[in-house]
C-alpha cells in the first residue's frame, strides 16, 4: 500500500510548504511516540489526568425495553467530557517531546478546542484555537472555557464561517509558523500522518471496550456503534474490533432534518470521492468539486469530509455507515436521560439513536456496544430550542 494511504483513500494533498512539518511529525511518531518512555508517560496521563479506563456500562433499563443487551463505552466520563482529550493529551505530549512551544488547533463545537486548551495548560504550551465566527456565537460557553484555560480563540470570518473554515485557518497558521508550533488536528482527517496519529491516540477506546466486554461477558459483542463526524471516536472505537470479522461495525452519520437535498453531514452515505484538507476521502461537494456546507443539530458532526480510513472500511465492506436525523438523535438524547440518567452529547445521541432502532431485530442474547463519545452539558441550549420548536 502507498505510504499514508488506506486503500485508495488518504495521502497528503498539502501545500509543499507544509511537507517539512508533516515529515517531521511522521518521523516523531516513529522515533518518539513508538518508544517506551513516551508510552509510559502517556499511559500515566491517561490514567491519572484523563481518568481512564472509562467505564463500560450495561444499560439494564434500556436493555429490558429493547430486548437485547445495550452497553455504553463512557467517553463522556473522560476529563473535559468527551473522547477528544485522548487525542489532545497525546498530541500535546508529542509536541512537547518535539520541542514545540505552541499548539494551534481548529474547533467546531468547541470540544476539541477545550480539550486542546486543557492539554496545553497541563503541559505548559501556548494555545491558539481557530473557530468559525458562527460557532463562536453558537458555542459561546466553550469559548469561555478555552479562554479560562489560557487559550487564545481566534474567530474565523471567511467562507462558511464554520469548522471547515477553521481548519483552513489553522492550516494557514501552520504554514506561516512551523518552527515552534504543532498543529493539533482534532479528528482522524487531514494529510498523512494525521489520520494515523489520531487513530493511534483514540484506539485506546476500542482496546479498553473489547477487553472490558470480554471480561464481563466472556465473548465479543455482535455490534459496535459510533457516531462519525470527522471519524475520530469511531475509528478509535472500531480499530481493535476490525480484525474480529464477526463483529459488525456501524458508523452513524448525521442526516440533518432528513429532507432530501437538505444540507446534512452524511458524507459517507451520500458523498463522492475528492480531496479536502490534505486527504482523499468522501466529501459533500458539487460536481465541480466545490465543498458544500454541511448541517447537523450536533455541532461536532457538522463537517463536509470524513476520515479516509472510514472511506476505506466502507469500500471494503468491513464497516457500514448509516444515517440518523436530528429528530431521531433528539429522541435518543431524551430517552437515555430519562431511562438511564445520562445526558449524552448530541453527537453521541446519533449513535445511540441507531442502536434504539434495532429493537425487535436482534436476539435477546445479542449485545450492542455504543461509543458514548461525550456528555450533553454543552448541548443544553440547542436541546432547549429544539424542544421549544417541536412543541411550538
Amino acid at each position: 500500500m502507498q505510504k499514508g494511504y488506506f486503500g485508495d483513500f488518504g495521502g497528503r494533498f498539502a501545500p509543499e510548504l507544509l511537507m517539512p512539518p508533516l515529515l517531521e511529525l511522521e518521523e516523531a511518531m516513529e522515533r518518539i511516540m513508538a518508544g517506551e518512555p513516551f508510552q509510559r508517560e502517556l499511559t500515566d496521563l491517561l490514567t491519572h489526568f484523563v481518568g481512564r479506563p472509562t467505564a463500560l456500562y450495561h444499560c439494564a433499563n434500556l436493555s429490558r425495553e429493547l430486548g437485547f443487551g445495550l452497553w455504553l463505552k463512557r467517553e463522556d466520563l473522560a476529563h473535559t467530557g468527551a473522547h477528544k482529550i485522548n487525542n489532545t493529551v497525546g498530541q500535546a505530549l508529542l509536541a512537547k517531546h518535539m520541542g514545540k512551544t505552541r499548539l494551534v488547533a481548529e474547533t467546531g463545537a468547541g470540544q476539541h478546542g477545550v480539550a486542546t486548551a486543557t492539554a496545553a495548560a497541563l503541559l505548559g504550551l501556548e494555545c491558539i484555537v481557530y473557530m468559525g465566527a458562527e460557532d463562536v456565537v453558537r458555542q459561546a460557553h466553550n469559548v469561555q472555557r478555552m479562554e479560562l484555560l489560557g487559550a487564545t480563540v481566534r474567530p474565523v470570518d471567511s467562507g462558511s464561517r464554520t469548522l471547515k473554515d477553521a481548519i483552513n485557518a489553522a492550516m494557514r497558521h501552520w504554514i506561516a509558523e512551523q518552527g515552534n508550533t504543532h498543529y493539533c488536528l482534532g479528528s482522524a482527517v487531514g494529510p498523512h500522518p494525521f489520520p494515523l496519529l489520531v487513530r493511534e491516540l483514540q484506539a485506546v477506546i476500542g482496546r479498553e471496550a473489547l477487553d472490558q466486554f470480554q471480561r464481563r461477558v466472556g465473548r465479543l459483542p455482535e455490534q459496535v456503534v459510533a457516531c462519525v463526524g470527522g471519524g475520530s471516536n469511531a475509528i478509535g472505537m472500531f480499530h481493535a474490533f476490525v480484525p474480529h470479522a464477526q463483529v459488525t461495525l456501524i458508523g452513524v452519520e448525521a442526516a440533518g432534518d432528513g429532507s432530501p437535498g437538505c444540507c446534512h453531514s452524511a458524507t459517507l452515505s451520500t458523498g463522492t470521492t475528492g480531496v479536502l484538507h490534505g486527504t482523499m476521502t468522501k466529501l459533500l461537494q458539487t460536481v465541480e468539486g466545490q465543498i458544500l456546507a454541511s448541517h447537523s443539530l450536533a455541532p461536532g458532526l457538522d463537517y463536509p469530509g470524513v476520515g479516509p480510513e472510514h472511506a476505506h472500511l466502507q469500500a471494503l465492506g468491513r464497516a457500514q455507515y448509516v444515517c440518523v436525523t436530528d429528530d431521531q438523535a433528539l429522541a435518543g438524547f431524551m430517552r437515555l436521560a430519562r431511562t438511564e440518567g445520562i445526558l449524552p452529547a448530541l453527537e453521541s445521541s446519533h449513535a445511540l439513536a441507531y442502536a434504539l432502532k434495532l429493537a425487535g431485530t436482534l436476539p435477546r442474547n445479542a449485545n450492542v456496544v455504543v461509543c458514548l463519545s461525550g456528555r450533553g452539558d454543552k448541548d443544553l441550549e440547542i436541546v432547549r430550542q429544539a424542544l421549544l420548536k417541536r412543541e411550538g
Partner: protein
Amino acid sequence: MSTSHLTDKITNALAQGRKAVMPYLPAGYPTKEAFWKHIADLDAAGADIIEIGIPFSDPVADGPVVEQAALCCLKQNVTLAWILEELTRRRPTIQAGIVLMGYMNPFLQYGMDKLARDAARAGANGLIIADLPLEESDGPRKLLQEHGVDLIPLVGLNSSPERLRAHAEKATGFVYFVSVMGTTGVRETLPEQLQDALTQAKQIFPIPLALGFGLHAPSQLQGVESVVDGVVMGSALIRHIDSTGTVGDFLAPWISSQ
C-alpha cells in the same frame, strides 16, 4: 529553444534584459466579462505568462484577498469547464503563455486525464496545483506531460536541498519559489533568508525560477535580482483592479524598471 513554451517565454524576457512578468488573476474576477478584458489588457501590456486562478471554495494556500476574489468568482458560477471553453475560444488572440493555477479537488472532479487533454487543447501551457506536493505529483505530472502541459512545482524557504533536487529532476517549464512562509497576500518586506534560499534553488534547478507571493513593487527585489527570472503578482493586481476598475499601467513598473 527548449521543449517548454513557458521556459521559452521566460528566456525571451531575460534576453530583453528584464524579468518575465507573470500576473495572476482568478478566472471570472471581478465579473466574467471584465475578466477576459483584463486578460487581454495584461497581454497587451506585455505580460510574458498569465496565471489564471481556478476558484476553489477552500483555498488553504491563499490569503484573504485571493480567497475573497475566488469566492466572488464562485458566486458567479465560474467553473473549470467554462474557463477552458472560453480560453479555447480566446487563446489565438493571447500572446502570453498561460498557466492554470488551482487546487487539486476541482481538477480531480473534472478528471485529470480529461483535464490534461482539454487544457492542452485550450492552449494552457502549464498547471500549478497548490496542494499537490512532490509525494503525490507523479500521476498528474505524467498525464499532463503526455499532452505537453508543464506541472509547475512550488517550493519555498523550508524546502531542503534534497527536496529541491527531487523536484528539479522532474520539473519542466519553471519553478515557482514562494517568497514567504505564509499564504498569498501583499507583504511590505520579504524575509532576510530569501537571498540565500533563492541562490541555492537557482543552483539546483536547470529551469527558470519565478518568485511569487507578497510582491507589489519592483523595489522588493533588491538583493535577489540576479537569481530571479520571473515575478508573479496576484493580490496586488486584485487590489489594483478593485480600486481602479482596470489593469491600466499595473505592469508598467515591473517591465520598465528592469
